[in-house]
């Protein structure tokens, strides 16, 4: 019996946000091994913008909160940074917080390029990250099983956020 504390060959990140009816948004990121086993989870307390901020940011408020503010806070606290980050909301496809970590978004986003994983799943990426994405896709092909469901961990994060927000309420 030996404790396996070394970093897995390929570390995956899954970032998801949940918005409540009252406008509060909280986000969480789950870091897993290439086989989906959880390594670390960070989630934010709910963020509620005030009236001034809503006026100031206008339609860019949500992209700012999701893509920069919450994402930045989570990234700063992570002890294990992922090799790649999966998101399913276009607002989260923002390089500012995650810097060099390639982001793959499963829904269409503006000003983005596309890549295919396992030949059947389309992901949207930031064009500037195209080379980094290529590299990580090669790594994933080596370590992540073809059968892996890369959307499933986002459901876990969503459930965890709802649980956390429910308890915090």
């Amino acid at each position: 019996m030996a404790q396996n504390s070394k970093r897995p060959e390929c570390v995956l990140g899954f970032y998801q946000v949940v918005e409540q009816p009252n406008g509060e948004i909280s986000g969480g990121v789950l870091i897993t091994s290439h086989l989906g086993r959880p390594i670390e989870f960070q989630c934010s307390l709910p963020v509620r913008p005030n009236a001034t901020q809503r006026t100031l940011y206008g339609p860019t408020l949500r992209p700012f909160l999701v893509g920069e503010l919450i994402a930045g806070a989570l990234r700063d606290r992570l002890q294990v940074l992922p090799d790649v980050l999966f998101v399913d909301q276009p607002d989260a496809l923002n390089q500012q917080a995650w810097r060099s970590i390639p982001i793959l978004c499963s829904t269409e986003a503006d000003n983005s390029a596309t890549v295919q994983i396992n030949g059947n799943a389309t992901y949207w990426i930031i064009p500037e990250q195209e080379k980094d994405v290529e590299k990580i896709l090669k790594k994933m092909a080596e370590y992540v099983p073809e059968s892996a469901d890369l959307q499933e961990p986002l459901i876990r994060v969503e459930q965890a956020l709802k649980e956390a927000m429910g308890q915090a309420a």
Partner: protein
Amino acid sequence: MNDDGKCMGTAVPRLPAPADQLRLPAPALPQFDSDFDVTVTQTGINVALHRWPKLQVQEQKLITSAGFIPGWKPYWHKPKTIQIAFPDFIDFQKKPEEKREEVRSIKPPVPQGGEENKAVRKCVTRIQPPADALSMEDRLFYILQPPLESWLAGQELVMPFEPFSYQYEGIAWLFAQKSALLADEMGLGKTMQSITAIRLLLRSGQVRRVLLVCPKPLIPNWQREFRLWAEELPVTTMEGDANRRKMLREMKSIPILLTNYEILVRDLQNVDEEELPGFDLVVLDESQRIKNRESVTSQVIRRIPRVRSWSLTGTPIENRPEELASLFEFMGVVPARSTPDLRQLKRLSDLYILRRTKEVAQPDMPPRLDRDAILELSSCQKSTYEIAEKEGVVHLDDMGDEITIQHVFELVLRLKQITNYDPLTGESAKLDRLIADMEEISASGGKAILFSQWTKTIDWIAERTGQFGSMVYHGGVPTKKREPILKEFKENPDKHLLLMSYGTGAVGLNLQFSQYVFLYDRWWNPAVEDQAINRAHRIGVKNPVIVTRFICKDTIEERIDLVLRQKREIFEKVLGEGDVSTESLSLNASEVFGLFDLKAKAGKGTRSIGPQGKDQEKAA
């Protein structure tokens, strides 16, 4: 302004601009006549006192920087975050690769692309936090675990066979429970579910030391099941002399320690509290063994320091609902010596018991077909029986007030033995019927299991059924020889009949390749008979299982059967759920006395007269 009050411009000489200042030349202002009258009063009152203002144009320096501008910069506090760190995964040294033809890896769930396929995405079993987990960290830990189907899909953990969906649910439930009673009906795979949950707990670093306690005859069964379902986990069986066993239980590096109730009690009975070994998880198989909370076994087991406590039994209540209280006390969900009422027991059951029946879990499972073979005793057998009964009853009557339940019980046993075979002539209606049935079964290549209460009867039958390749499996067979017997019975096509005792063969064995079960004589409690039958009628069975109960007409067997049937009907009416296997159907003292029209002694009316342990077969 001129004297007429007309406004006039006057040119003022321009000054030269310093080199360091940007100066714009003042515009030339030609003299012109204004077209309006201007009257300026000095005081604002007396229009007579006035003087004409002098109008001049001068150069002015322009401002080149904005200077102070009031502004607002949005400031956002960084959101606070919560962190959950997961224990590192535990690696166990893998055993050398062996070619295992009969084992196949299950197919992992395949993510499907496209909208259509999303709709048919395979159901996943998620681990839910237990109701008693209160802290957010604890609850999130369970929620964030991967679905069992992908966790066990052969990526990190290889499963030899894909579990059924209800088994996934059972594994997920056990994984999250600190206190659990898995009470699935016999044959639904409690062993496999427990092993897999233990495996997940060990591999995810949630537990380090597990103690598994089971009846002695089931040790080989557990060893075999661990090899099948969790081959990488080292299982250490508590055996050898006292010193070796002491060393084993003190070794903290042993992840799974397997022992039986008797050895555990013997070893720990006199150990001081502070010297007791601690475990992260204690699992009791056939946990009805601790239903009596005053028994030494119960007391010794409750003293073991532990974090998690699981019970496994298909019959959580054998006699009285209060028996559950003893199991709950072991599980740590009721205070010591407490006596929860039925309402409280029900509430605790909802929280800590998971029970599924075959009808619910496996609606497509081939049915079990019960048939009673009502047999006429042979003439000699009948004569012997009648003499024995007459003499016995006369003897009991002669005893008067000195009669006890034990005396009646002895007569019952003696008569039951005669219905099995006549000890004087060797005649047996049951054997005749058995041989007739077995000829048909063996001719079709089928396999049958026969249960009896007595080892002596089993040996007697074995001597007379050699033509069917009969094999004997009872308490008199050394433990080490039992596994090979089961293996040979399964694999040898010439072996058609396995003769077993209720005590040794009724629990924990997987004999689902047998299509026929004979109950040569009746046990006191149908729940035990059901356990025996379920050795064959369990998960994996491909064909219906035909169960034949031998009952001799006009004998004590028929009367016992009648009483048991009446009791079962009453329980069904009371419970109304058709799940009567958990309730007491045993005969009590009054009913045994009633078999001979004798009155039970006062105060003993509800005492069960069934043997306390199922291993009393040797008493015969």
